[in-house]
Each structure stands twice: as structure tokens, then as C-alpha cells.
């Protein structure tokens, strides 16, 4: 059983985001890049599957600054193979471009299962999982919260809004978009990551030129204005409380 997990780095929303001078991109100076949280869940799910079935786990990630850390961390958790896709990411690469580059790479790896976080908060042109499924001509199930593997097929539990979920059976190979792993991503001790840095090897694959065609272009980026739609109630705490009570009354909830 071969599992390929896609992981990528995204801006950390803990930091304040700023727009650069071009007005159509984020200012990178203050940006901290971290692993897309849902990709972290995808890696965890893959490792859990490996622990249960002895699968072989390959983690694949675009070569953006900091990628070595997330790959070595994955190795410390138990990933067997680490690959980074080297290329020119400077001017921004959309998911379509990435999916097009990843398609032949993934074909070569002959995976039975391809996992990715179901989305990332910077996806403008669609999510990488279903895009890849489209290019690879494979089925896709997203918002998956748990996976069972059997010979030649997988049972994935997909979550719908409102707490409803559905168990879906699908023939392998399949692309699954992970929403949450069976268990929260495990903590790896720093010393284990450091050890992985010494023992694990990161393979590099050339992306070549990215074909970004088909994605939308951004003309303007901006931060939503403060309280764009909200009427801000201010004054002393006392006044505010009184105003709120007034509003409650007006709306008939008190």
C-alpha cells in the first residue's frame, strides 16, 4: 500500500497580514509560513494508516522556504519518503499550476491513496485535491474525517454540515481531502526532528515551468474595513450595556 500525502506551507493567520506595494499580493516580510493545518491532519491520517496497515508513506511538498522543516517533521512522525518539488515559486504559483506539475509526479509514484488537506485558506482557484483527482482521472471524496482500508478499496467518512456524515466506499486508487484526522496531529519532540534531519533524506524533483493558465487574476487585495457593516457601540461600559439591553428589547428577545 502506497500513500502519498500532499502538504504545503501557507501564511500563518496568527500574524497580521499586510498587502505589499503591488496591491495584489501579501507582504512577505512579516509573513510566517506554517504547514496548512489540514495537511497536517492528512499527514497524521497517513501515519495512522501506516501504523494500522504497514503502508508506505510518501510526503510531497512544494519547495518553499521552511519546507524542509515540515518534511523532516513528517519523517520524525514516521513518513518513509520525502520529496520536494523544486521550482520558481517566487512570482506565485496557483493550485492549477501545482496540480499540473504534480500529476505526472504522482503517477510515477503509483499510489493507492492520495491524501491532502481538504482546503487551504489561500486557495483561490480551487482545492488541490479535487483538481488533482480531475487531472489523474481518479475519484475524489472531500471533508473526510476517517478512513478504513481494505483490499482494493477504502471506506471514507465524509462530513456534511450539521453534524451529519456519510460512510462512502470507493475503489482504490482515490484522492481524499482530509478535514480532520482520527486523532489530532501528534506532537514530535524537537530531538526527534533533529534526528530525522540527520537520517532522513529529502529527494528533489524539478517542477519545470509552471502552467498557471485558467486561474483567476487578482486586481486588488485589501483588508476588510473595520466593522464594515457593524454599527460600533461605544461609550462607557455602563452605556454600552444599556444600549445592548435596548437592542435586545427592540429585537424582542428580552
Amino acid at each position, binding site marked *: 500500500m502506497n500513500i502519498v500525502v500532499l502538504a504545503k506551507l501557507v501564511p*500563518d493567520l*496568527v*500574524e*497580521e497580514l499586510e498587502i505589499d506595494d503591488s496591491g495584489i499580493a501579501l507582504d512577505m516580510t*512579516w509573513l*510566517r509560513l*506554517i504547514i496548512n493545518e489540514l495537511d497536517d491532519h492528512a499527514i497524521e491520517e497517513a501515519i495512522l494508516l501506516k501504523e494500522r496497515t504497514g503502508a508506505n508513506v510518501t510526503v510531497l511538498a512544494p519547495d518553499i522556504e521552511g519546507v524542509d522543516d515540515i518534511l523532516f517533521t513528517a519523517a520524525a512522525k514516521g513518513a518513509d519518503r520525502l520529496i520536494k518539488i523544486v521550482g520558481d515559486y517566487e512570482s506565485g504559483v496557483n493550485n492549477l499550476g501545482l496540480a499540473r506539475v504534480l500529476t505526472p509526479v504522482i503517477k510515477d509514484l503509483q499510489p493507492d491513496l492520495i491524501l491532502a488537506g481538504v482546503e487551504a485558506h489561500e486557495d483561490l482557484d480551487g482545492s488541490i485535491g479535487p483538481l488533482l483527482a480531475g487531472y489523474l482521472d481518479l475519484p475524489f471524496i472531500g471533508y473526510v474525517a476517517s478512513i478504513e482500508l481494505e483490499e482494493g478499496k477504502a471506506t471514507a467518512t465524509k462530513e456534511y454540515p450539521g453534524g451529519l456524515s456519510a460512510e462512502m466506499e470507493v475503489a482504490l486508487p482515490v484522492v481524499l481531502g482530509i478535514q480532520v484526522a482520527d486523532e*489530532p496531529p*501528534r*506532537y*514530535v*519532540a*524537537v*530531538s*526527534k*526532528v*533533529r534526528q530525522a534531519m540527520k537520517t532522513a533524506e529529502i529527494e528533489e524533483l524539478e517542477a519545470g515551468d509552471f502552467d498557471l493558465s485558467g486561474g483567476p487574476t487578482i486586481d486588488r487585495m485589501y483588508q476588510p474595513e473595520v466593522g464594515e457593516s457593524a454599527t460600533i457601540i461605544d461609550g462607557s461600559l455602563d452605556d454600552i450595556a444599556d444600549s445592548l439591553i435596548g437592542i435586545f428589547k427592540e429585537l424582542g428577545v428580552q
Partner: protein
Amino acid sequence: MPIRETFWNIPHWAEIAQYLVGLLTILIFSYGVIRRVRRWLQGRPQRRIDRIGSRLWSVVVQAVGQARTLQDIYPGIMHLTIFWGMIALLIGTILATVDWDVAHLLFNVQFLTSWVYVSYELILDIFGVFLLIGLGMAIYRRYIIRPDRLANMPGIGFKRDDAYVLIMLGLIGITGYLVEGLRIAVAQPDWAPWSPVGNAIGNAFIAFGDPSNRFLHYALWIIHILIAFVALASIPYTKFWHLIAGPVNIFFRSLEPAGKMSAPTSEEEPGVKEWRDFSWKQLLDFESCTRCGRCQDVCPAHASGFSLSPRDIMIKLDTFIWQPTNGRNMLGDTISADELWACTSCQACVDICPVFNDQLSSIIDMRRYLVLEGDIDPQLQDALANLGRYGNSFGKSERMRAKWTKPIQPKIKDARRDEVEYLWFVGDYASYHTSMTDKTLMMAKVFQSAGLDFGILYDGERNSGNDVRRVGEEGLFDMLAEKNLVTFSKSTFKTIVTSDPHSFNTLKNEYSENGNDHYSVLHYSQLFDQMITSGQLNVARKLGYKVTYHDPCYLGRYNGEYDAPRRVMSALGCELVEMPRNKENTFCCGAGGGRIWMEDPPEVAERPAEMRVKEAASLSGVSILVVACPKDLVMFQDAVKTADLEGKLVVKDLIELIVEATEMNLSETEEQN
């Protein structure tokens, strides 16, 4: 002339037999000792042979002098009398042996004669009384008072072992006196009054019949000798072993400052999974434990109802090592993860153990393994991940670390750019915690108005790693320390000051390990003490409050600073009423060792912080609990709410008292500048 006549009435064969039995005893004893030593040697190496002089001295004070044992009065006196009673009799017996078997046999002289002999008789008789009194106290305590700390042993056989020791010592004493009494009754030497107990027994023998019953003497003598030999031979196999392991353990104790934790004994495999992963010294700890339970009595986790007892950790590990495991694992089956995570690293157990065990080091070494395995509480996991990513446990951006400084004018110096005398290491809680930041502002303003030349590191500061290290995440500690040290090296300052005792501890004791010794570290209470003494800080108003004070573990027990905060409070005109548990006996608030990042399990009846605020509230006339640690403030403020003491007790940071007493108008300072 008084002289000791040994082996009278004892047939020659018995005398010979005695020596044969003695030889056998030595063999059995030696085998037991060798077996023990071979176990120790299977542990990982650890260097403990420096400073021989201090080590020997500590054996004299602690093993011979029983200094620490005596800190607990009843059991202290009890143990001292048994110990010294037995030692004196042993010395007496050795003297008698030398007198007879060496001096008399080889050189045909005897030194136990005349006044030497009679004082010898008297002294031994007195110590015999001590022994019996001590044993009586022990029996009364163990079987009638039955304190908690001696109860609920983790396993069977311990009761028998405890009773065995008392019975053997009792029998040796009683038969000894009887033999002596018989001798006096028969020989009726002139110097008999020098053996008051023996003489009394002798007189009783005379009163009740013919004492010159040779068989009675003969039999008692044999019983006495046999019991003594059995006791000797059993030393390495029973609780008696602490007689040897204890002093040895004291000799090899750590002489490092308490605040400097040992790094993992193995770099490749940090942490302890199997018993052989412990250091030899830790294995020696387990064997030295006398099951006295003192550590359990002071353990805040145990008091709260957590499954942890440091006593049981020691006992269970010792049992695990010596008994067939039957497929049971040390970690998981014998010692549970819950027990290990319950520890607040308060050091109380380590500080009280009469044989100088370091229970905490074993707990942390096992935690190190759990961390490596990822076997940790989800909240702790979040905290560690945040610390790794952002350098603080709150998961906030480091750019927000100095957000609290916004209202301050003029801007606080950035120690990375401007040279300062004092580098203020603010710490996570004081920087980020919403209940703390107003106190942090106060401190800044007090510093400013006192004209202190100080700066902070702004977004360059990272969590100091003190508690990360005690959680067992050594790699993350190294990382955090490295980052801070790099920032320190780029900054120019003379002294670090911090309000956080945890940071204080590691900056002072553990950062220096990495060769960065060009600065000193002060706790803010120490700095304020200096500033008040030197007149730099002017106390305008005596507060006249009746307060109590909580010694933070990492300031007090770990670093011995009890006086500076007390001097500050007294200079501010506060009358200090001590809580029953103060100074070295302080009771942890429950936040240390990473516990502040973990969820309390449901079995926790009353959190340590709740017990502590109740202790404070029970003092008559006291309504203020003064703290000198940001975590204490957060913990106790919460505990005051949960223990329903609101309105009865307020928790105040030392800095609040300073602001009041210096009559500093905070908003005014702002305007002035």
C-alpha cells in the same frame, strides 16, 4: 579491678560455632551486597565523585548527625534513638570483640578494664534504653497512630518487612539485657551499679529464684547471638539495607544547585523507558528509600488527589527491578503516565527526603520518554507546539509580545539596540496573560520613575524554557535557550531582572551551562530590595497591611531566596503573618512542571492552589495574599473564585504593594513623560 570476662559459661565449641556462624553471616551479607551493587552498575553512567570533602561532610551531617531526619520531630527523635542506640551497641560489641579476640588473644592484654570498663558498661546500658524507647515510639506510631504516610503501600510484603526490622531490633535489645542481667545476678561484681538496667534485671533474677541456671544463660546467649547474626546477614535483603544504601546515597547526592536539572543521561535515547535507562544513582535512590512517606506528605499532587505519590514511585520502581516482571512494563503497567504528568516539579519531595533521594529526576526522565513517544495531554501538546512555533505558550505572534508597552511613554529601550544596565526579561505570562499585563505596566512605570536604566527584548524574547525542560521536552528547551542566548549576546546589559521565578531559575542556573556567564540574574523582589535599601525607590507611605506571603517554589525552595521579598514587604510597612507552610516548606500553587498547560483530571478533589488560598484565608486578620510570581497570581486569583473566598482574600502581586506605598500615580507618570 573491673574487667570484662567474655565467653564465661560458654563451651568452647559454642565459641567456635559462633565464629563459624559469623563467617556464614559475612558470606550471606556479602552476596547480598554484591547483588545490589551489580544492579546499580547496570544503570547509565553519571558522574558523582567530585568534591569528596563535601560529600563526606554531608554523610557526617546527614547520616551520622541525622540532620534532615530530625526536622520532623517525633519520627526524627524516634529514628535518632534507634539509630544511635544500635550504633552504640554495635560499637560496644566491636570493642568487646577487639578486646577479647585481638588484644587478649594475641597480646594477652585487655583494655576494657577499670574505669574504661565501667563507663563502657554505663554508656551501653543507656544507649540500650534509647534503643528500646525509640522502638517503642516506632511501634506506637506505626500501629497505633497509623499516619497516612505509612499506609497504603503499593504492594504486599512491605508490612512484614517493617515489622521484621522492629522485632529484630527489639529482640536484640531485650535478650542482650537479659544476658547481661543474668551475668550480674551470678557474678554480682562490685561495679554492677554501673550497669543500671542490667543490675535491675539481675536483682529481679535473684528475687525470682536461682539465677545460676546455666542452661537459661546458655540458651539466651545463643538466641541473642543468633538474632544478631540473622539481622546482620539480612541487611542487604530487607529494609535494613537503608543502613548502608542511605549513607552511600547521601555521599553520592547531587551537589549541583537544585535549579540546575541534569541533562538526559543519553543523547541518543533521552528519557527512560526500561529500568536500565536510569542512571546508577537513580537505581540507588530506589533502594535507599525507607518508605518513610515524608515526600508523599508534602507532595501537592498527592494532596490534591492525583494518582502520584513520590514515595510510591520509588517503591514501585524498586519492586519492579527486583521482582519478576511477568511481562509487565515499567512504564504504563507499573508507573502510569498520569502519575508522571501530575508532578508540579515543586521539589518538595527532593528537599525533604532523609536519604536524599531525587524523586523528581526520575519522574522527569520518564516524562522525557513520554514526550518522545508523543504520549502527552492534548493541551500540553498545543502549548509545546505553540512554544516551538511562536516562542510562547499562548500561540500569539511574537510581534504581540510587547503589545502591553503601547501606553508607555517614553518608549521602553530595546536592549538589542541600546545599552542598558538591566535587561528586563518579561516572560510569557507577564507579556501575554490578560490578568497580568496591568501588573507588567506597573512594573515598567515603577522602573521608569525610579530612573532605572533598563530595556526589554521586545519580539526577541522567547519563553525561557524552564517548564518546557521540566515537562521533559529537552530539545525544545535547548532551542528556546539557544534563541534567547543569541539575543542576549547581541544585547548589552549587566544584569537580568525578571518577575517570573521560573525564568529566574533557568536563566540563573541553566543558561550558564552554555557558557554565558557575563551577567547576573535578579528576581524583581531582589532588585526592589536593593532599590529600597539604596534609597532609589522611595517609600512614601507605610501601608500598614496585615498580609501573608506565598514563597514561589522556584524562588524559595529552588534558589533559597526567602528574605528579599520579606524585606520589601516590611519596608513597605506590611505586617507579615506567615502561613503554616512557609519558606522551605512552602506549598506549590500547582502550576509548575508544565501543569499550568494541562487539564486537571476529574479525580482531583481540591487543586493545590485552592488548598493554598484556604491556608492563607485561615490566618486571622489577613486578607491579602502577596505573590511574587505571575503564574501564582493567575492560579490564586482563579482559586479564590473556585474556593469561594472572594471578598475574604485578595491576591496581590508585590508590585501592586510597591505602587501603593510609593504613592505612584500611574496616569500621572504617563502624562509627565
